[in-house]
């Protein structure tokens, strides 16, 4: 157990898992419903800046796209994607800055692993995509926002029995730890 939290609070035993869920609240709020649900994990320095720059230029994109800033796309593990798809995501994007030390090939390597893992639960690999961007190339990621939302809309939502499988998998992992 993490010593940072009072042991009496049993919920904190699953602190990392809960934290992952809390972060995903942005995408799956009870009051801000959207369908389909798409999460874009964006590296906080360069890529996030590119998304801001697009905003400054008033480049519109679908409201279904929910951006979550992360220190690096390399911070994301299979855990985040399991949670995302178990809790209602229909698509996940991983966007990294081009000047990041976490290079594109390493990101791809991890994304391929994630896709393999999720495919076991029946989540199609087309629902996950990664990209790298430089700061002025916001059009590149925004074009992806458009096309990716379009693709996910065509694919339809993830089936609820698949989400159940994923939830079981998450619980299994927590118990194993």
């Amino acid at each position, binding site marked *: 157990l*993490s*010593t*940072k*939290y*009072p042991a009496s609070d049993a919920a904190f035993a699953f*602190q*990392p898992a809960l*934290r*992952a*869920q*809390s*972060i*995903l*609240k*942005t*995408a*799956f*709020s*009870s*009051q*801000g*419903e*959207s369908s389909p649900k798409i999460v874009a994990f964006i590296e906080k320095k360069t890529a*996030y*800046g590119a*998304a*801001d720059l*697009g*905003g*400054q230029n*008033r*480049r*519109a*994109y679908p*409201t279904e796209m*929910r*951006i*979550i*800033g*992360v*220190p*690096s796309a*390399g*911070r*994301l*593990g*299979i*855990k*985040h994607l399991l949670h995302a798809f178990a809790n209602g995501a229909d698509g996940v994007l991983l966007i990294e800055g081009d*000047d*990041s*030390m*976490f290079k594109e090939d390493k990101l791809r390597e*991890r994304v391929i692993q994630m896709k393999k893992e999720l495919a076991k639960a029946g989540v199609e690999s087309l629902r996950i995509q990664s990209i790298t961007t430089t700061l002025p190339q916001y059009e590149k990621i925004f074009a992806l926002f458009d096309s990716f939302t379009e693709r996910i809309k065509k694919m339809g939502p993830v089936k609820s029995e698949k989400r159940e499988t994923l939830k079981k998998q998450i619980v299994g992992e927590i118990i194993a*730890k």
Partner: protein
Amino acid sequence: MSEKPRIGVFICHCGGNISDTVDVARVKQAAKSFENTEVAETLEYVCSNPGQDTIKNAIKEHKLNRVIVASCSPRMHLDTFRQAVKSAGLNPYLLDMVNLREQCSWVHSDKEKATGKAIALVEGAVARAKYLEPLTPKSMKVTESALVIGGGIAGIYSALELADKGYQVYLVERNPSIGGRMSQLSKTFPTFDCSACILTPKMVSVAQHPNIKVYTNAQVVGLKGTPGNYEVKVKITPRNVILGKCTACGECATKCPVKKPSKYEEGLLQEKAIYIPFKQAIPNAYVIDKEYCLYHTRGVCRICEKFCKSKAIDFDQKDEFIDLKVGSMVVSTGYNLVDPKVFSNYSYGLHPDVVTSIQFERLMLQGLHKPSNGEVPKKVAFLLCVGSRQTTENGVPYCCKIGCMNAVKHSLLVDKSIPGAESWIFYTDMRAHGKGYEEFYAKAREHNVVFVRGRVAEVIPNGNQLTVRSEDTILGKQIEENFDLVVLSPALIPTTGTKELSEMLGIDLGPDNFFLEVHHKLRGVETKREGIFIAGTAQGPKDIRETTMESMATASKIATFLGRGEISVSPEVAFVSPEKCNLCGVCVDQCLTKAIKMDKDKLVVDEISCIGCGVCVPTCPKGAIDLKNSI
């Protein structure tokens, strides 16, 4: 954090920028309903003074311990609000921002959907807020000294700049003298400055500067510590001559019975086994070459010892190891030339009159002659891009950047020193990219220089002469000409030991095997490891002007790094829970900045080096490593 989170949410209108598209009143209403939210307010401008005061008052009034500001991008105002929160007595890291402007109101037009998204964004931040922890930025005292690896022009310039700024500088040079490649050059383009005349005064300044300590015959063999406080192990191989005592009278060299090819003269001349690298060498002292010295190879002789009047020769010297404490370092290890022997079509090594450009520099200074018979050459061919801009096995894909101007310089020097001599330059593209370079090239065209666009196919020894076969791609015809001397411009490659050094220092090499900077344009002299900088041709081919400018930039960066006396870094870094960690070491390999180190029985995260990217976190099979205040 044992106390219950008490969250305050402040939503900004941004003067209509947000409120025109997002129904902020509804967002406020929703925010009030979220768990742990004590207060939710909308304000016209949260970033304004009255707005900041509202936050400060709310913190005091409602005893808030988490603050969420839903306004513009954190890239815009995170620091503003952190300061405001701090002045109200709350830890600045307990603040979070929601990007309602750049990533919501400005990019959506449907008010209903945009409001829904805004509510979701705020809800996410509220849910996240309870995991925020109070943090304090780490700061650490730095050692106000610098190490310069490599004593060429780049190292000399960096060392002088830093020493003038008042830092203690240690200059480590692998050869017996500092000076590097520039000391071998005759003249420099495009101004025909005498290379030695502009370099040697700088070398003397280095030797005499009270803040610079020079170690020659020395190599860095180990690195420990963290940025700002590195511990460097330097190995000094014996020179067999005591530096303080040698007066460089040269008596020993006249008596020494062994001859060897001179490295400084690129093998064109012979010198003794006890030698001085060149006349203006710093330190100005003789040195014994162990590969040739009879005492070292066969255990006899020691004639030099008998004749030395100042008793400066000491055959008992042993390898010496010294430890230096430095805050920062410059890697200026320079370049090598590719060995043209690998390109057998140029007959280099088969005929003595085929020389490299650096050998030609030495020939110029010796008085231009053919190495084979000492005659004065009347017709000289300059072959550019020998190994450069080639994707073949032995070639390199990049441009050597100095070959074109160097050949133009050589051809003008030939024209000047030998009346009636003819120079031919076989080029791929004539690249004259610096200040005054195009004019320099134009000047050569007015002289007795023939420019042929085409790569040379073959150089064939032809008695006393050399036949060069090439194509002229402008005229579209084949050329076969006889020359007295053929000069090759070999590709520039990193100096030997670059790979080992990069592994030791934990910095990256690029695809060209030169040291890699963090950013091509904006962070051109920094490496991925904090406190280690690069200068000169260690980073890639460049000319002297660029090298000196880069060295000064590097010195300036180091002064910035060391100047504050301490370095403070973001506390949002990785940490290890020792009770979960099983020391498998996966994260150590994953770390991009070598911030995680394996101690005896635990993992240690160097908080100065860690950039908080979190790449290590998902790789941990035990979930033992995590980031502070970040997802």
